[in-house]
């Protein structure tokens, strides 16, 4: 109990500090130095400081860590609560690191603590494997990040970010390109961008729910902060190609992430795929910002950056809400398999409606926060399309608009499936004890806080957009394009629908609604007649079979008569293009190495012959 309480207390303390730093960073328009630690050589100097760009990320960390702490008061293991405090602190330090060494060490601390959280249930083999994959990706990514930062520091002759930013204008274009590619690999793999996302749907579902909420809601964002830091400050200004690359990768991640989510029926893995999708949407915004900046359209760039930053905060909030809600479901039901859940609306009386708000927010339904930031991303894409540029630029922007629209539709399909299957209808399996009604406790309060933030930021978007506008203006150097309709839009859209819903409810209460059995063509009404998650996603699985590569097995057990099967087993699974590619690569490598084994006969004379042959070859070539 002590461990849990001190862990939660420490998390809240870090959150409070993050909020304070966010306010200070957001109100200063220039980077601010806080602490500098002495070091034997200047290259190893550690400076902590604040930059305006870090402010939204710090604010997100604060907004997310408080409810995650509250959730951990009642649910999850005590040791996780303590680890989460350390994880939050590490992320805070990454965001305020202002030298290469400080950034790298805090980045590594963040990766390692999160690996402990992923490995929480290490007694299971799958969890150990997921942790291993995560560590490999994290360390490879960290190496890329380190090389990129060292290149920049060596060029600037000083490891502090402020000095690197000042020297960035003179950076030769070769180095600039190399830094961009390395940063994209390092930060992009950590953020879960396709095709380097594969660790994410493995690691997030096995971590405890409170850790998943922070991993997905905050850590991916810290990686995006790194990407923005390099492209907007440390190696700025970039060429047009950077923006285009980001828009392309963002669109592919958005569409790919949501496609895999739609066909998945593990609630937590599905949410992890939605993180890929939403990171994609954020990166589209960032890409438009870079593109518009390189074209000299600073106002549009600032608008796009505001959209990206707003979606960053929003995704943290609703994904935190959904992961914590999934954690409550896992705790009370013992599973997150959509095929085994159903009808939770009846007894999870707090979690269910709050989870619905999360679903509506992530689907970008008005009046919630996801709607506003996705709408702003669309506006910046359309602004880019209208403002000109070459054929390639316009094609990419158009493709991105279409991709984003498709993503929105698929996300809606996915969350209708999730909410309809898990919370509505009737339970899909008999329960041993009658379910007891959920009480309003700390975990429910955590969900309520996040849902309230999702609603507030949607109904009154200026609360966040005005400060973000200032930050974007400081980062880009021009005020964003005005969006005059923004303050009133969400309420204008939902006023009549909400009034209609209220009237329908009032009418139903006054006139009464008779309860009747569901129409099933006269056959008995059973829970197993309900549509399942696999059935729900069947049309999409068929239409997008060329990407999803579904594999299906149908076993029909017949009894006495072939016309009346006793039992039908149906199993379907998507193979992942990236896994297939990796498997092919591994197979080819193994085949080649097996061939190469013929060279290794074990005979000493043969080895001497190899050596002589090599020497002759070297001499011939070198001559």
């Amino acid at each position, binding site marked *: 109990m002590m461990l849990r309480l001190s862990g939660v207390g420490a998390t809240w303390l870090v959150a409070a500090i993050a909020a304070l730093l966010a306010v200070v960073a957001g109100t200063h328009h220039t980077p601010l130095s806080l602490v500098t630690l002495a070091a034997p050589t200047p290259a190893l100097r550690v400076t902590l400081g604040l930059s305006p760009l870090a402010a939204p990320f710090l604010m997100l960390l604060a907004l997310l860590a408080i409810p995650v702490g509250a959730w951990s008061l009642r649910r999850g293991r005590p040791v996780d609560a303590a680890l989460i405090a350390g994880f939050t602190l590490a992320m805070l330090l990454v965001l305020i690191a202002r030298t290469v060494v400080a950034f790298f060490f805090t980045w590594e601390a963040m990766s390692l603590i999160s690996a402990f959280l992923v490995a929480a249930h290490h007694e299971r083999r799958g969890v150990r494997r997921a942790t291993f994959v995560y560590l490999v990706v994290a360390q490879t990514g960290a190496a890329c990040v380190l090389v990129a930062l060292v290149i920049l520091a060596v060029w600037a002759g000083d490891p502090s970010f402020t000095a690197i930013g000042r020297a960035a204008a003179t950076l030769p274009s070769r180095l600039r390109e190399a830094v961009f590619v390395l940063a994209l690999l390092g930060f992009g793999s950590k953020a879960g961008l396709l095709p380097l996302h594969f660790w994410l749907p493995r690691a997030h579902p096995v971590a405890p729910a409170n850790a998943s909420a922070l991993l997905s809601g905050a850590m991916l964002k810290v990686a995006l902060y790194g990407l923005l830091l390099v492209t907007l400050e440390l190696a700025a200004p970039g060429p047009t190609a950077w923006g285009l690359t980001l828009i392309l990768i963002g669109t592919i991640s958005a569409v790919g992430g949501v496609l895999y989510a739609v066909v998945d029926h593990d609630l937590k893995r599905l949410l992890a795929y939605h993180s890929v999708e939403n990171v994609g949407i954020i990166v589209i915004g960032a890409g438009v910002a870079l593109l518009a900046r390189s074209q000299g359209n600073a106002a549009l760039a600032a608008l796009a950056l505001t959209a990206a930053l707003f979606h960053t905060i929003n995704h943290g909030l609703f994904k935190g809400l959904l992961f914590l809600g999934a954690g409550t479901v896992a705790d009370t039901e013992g599973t997150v398999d959509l095929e085994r859940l159903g009808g939770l609306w009846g007894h999870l009386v707090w979690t269910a409606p709050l989870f619905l708000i999360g679903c509506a927010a992530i689907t970008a339904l*008005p009046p919630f926060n996801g709607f506003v930031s996705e709408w702003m991303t669309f506006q910046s894409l*359309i602004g880019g399309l209208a403002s000109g540029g070459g054929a390639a630029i316009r094609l990419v922007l158009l493709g991105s608009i279409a991709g984003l629209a498709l993503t*929105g539709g698929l996300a809606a399909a996915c969350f209708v499936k999730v909410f309809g299957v898990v919370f509505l209808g009737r339970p899909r399996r008999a329960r041993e004890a009658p379910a007891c009604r959920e009480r309003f406790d700390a975990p429910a309060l955590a969900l309520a806080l996040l849902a309230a933030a999702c609603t507030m930021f949607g109904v009154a978007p200026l609360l966040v957009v005005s400060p973000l506008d200032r930050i974007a203006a400081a980062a880009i150097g021009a005020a964003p394009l005005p969006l005059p309709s923004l303050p009133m839009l969400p309420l204008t859209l939902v006023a009549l629908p909400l009034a209609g819903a209220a009237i329908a409810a009032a009418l139903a209460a006054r006139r009464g609604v008779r309860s*009747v059995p569901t129409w099933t063509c006269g056959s008995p009404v059973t829970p197993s007649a309900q*549509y399942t998650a696999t059935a729900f996603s069947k049309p999409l699985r068929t239409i997008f079979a060329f990407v999803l590569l579904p594999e299906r097995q149908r076993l029909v057990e017949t009894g006495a008569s072939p016309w009346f099967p006793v039992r039908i087993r149906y199993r379907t699974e998507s193979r992942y293009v990236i896994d297939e590619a990796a498997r092919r690569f591994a197979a080819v490598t193994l085949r080649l190495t097996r061939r190469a084994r013929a060279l290794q006969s074990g005979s000493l004379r043969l080895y001497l012959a190899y050596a002589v042959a090599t020497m002759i070859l070297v001499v011939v070539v070198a001559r």
Partner: protein
Amino acid sequence: MLAVVQMLIIVALAPLVQGAMKRLRARLQGRPGPSIIQPYRDLAKLWGKEAALPEGTSIITICAPGLSLGVALTFAAALPFAGPTAISIVDIVALAFLLGLGRFVLALAALDTRSAFAGMASSREMTFASLVEPALLVALLGGAALGHGTSFAALRMAPFGLAGTLAFGAFFLVLLAETARIPVDNQETHYELTMIHEGLVLEYASWQLAMLQLATYIRQLSFLLLSTLLLPGGFSVWLAPFWVISIAGAITLVETMFAKLRLFEVPQLLTTAFLLAVTSIGLRLFGAMV
């Protein structure tokens, strides 16, 4: 105020348009068909009946008809025929999200009824909606003059021409899907397995069904009016009725001449719509450059 007048006119005429299309379709098929004011009679009859819903359905199912009607009314009020009003800050992107809200709640209500038919319809509706959405947005962008903003108050149409024709063609296919018409869906089917839109509302009866049907009619007329924006003289209040009658006639003709597509052939139709829209916008953008 003008927006309210516009909304009320659309609400008043929406069942008439439905009745006229049904009548025309019957005549084209050689049947006498119901009277064109039959939808009003149906709505009045349904409104007086007692509501019935499956046991244990949640508040979502109870609120869905009213919410759906509210979405349709907002759509009708936001159209730009009454000039710039308070509600015409709504733009084409926000409109797509708003329609998404109505669809989301209706699809959830369908799953809430525990009926396999409704679940099937819910799945199909969401599948096709996700494919329609890109085509819808790109078609509207293809018809609009970019650079003015996308809100209905600021929207300006580009000069009609080949690009405009293609954009309208794309939107016409979208229209067939959004108004649940053959070849995508069949409003007159009585066979649960083939229903999409009808399947979603299968468990509703009485005044709740009346609300949903009125919402469907309003949405249909609003979509018809929206499509007239893509035609020459699009914003004119006086030309709009002429265009609506022509497009509704064309839809009825398509319904008579074609059979319903197989479920998995519908994506091809929607992809065609999308490609037409992309071609249109491509002509617009690159025509200026070449």
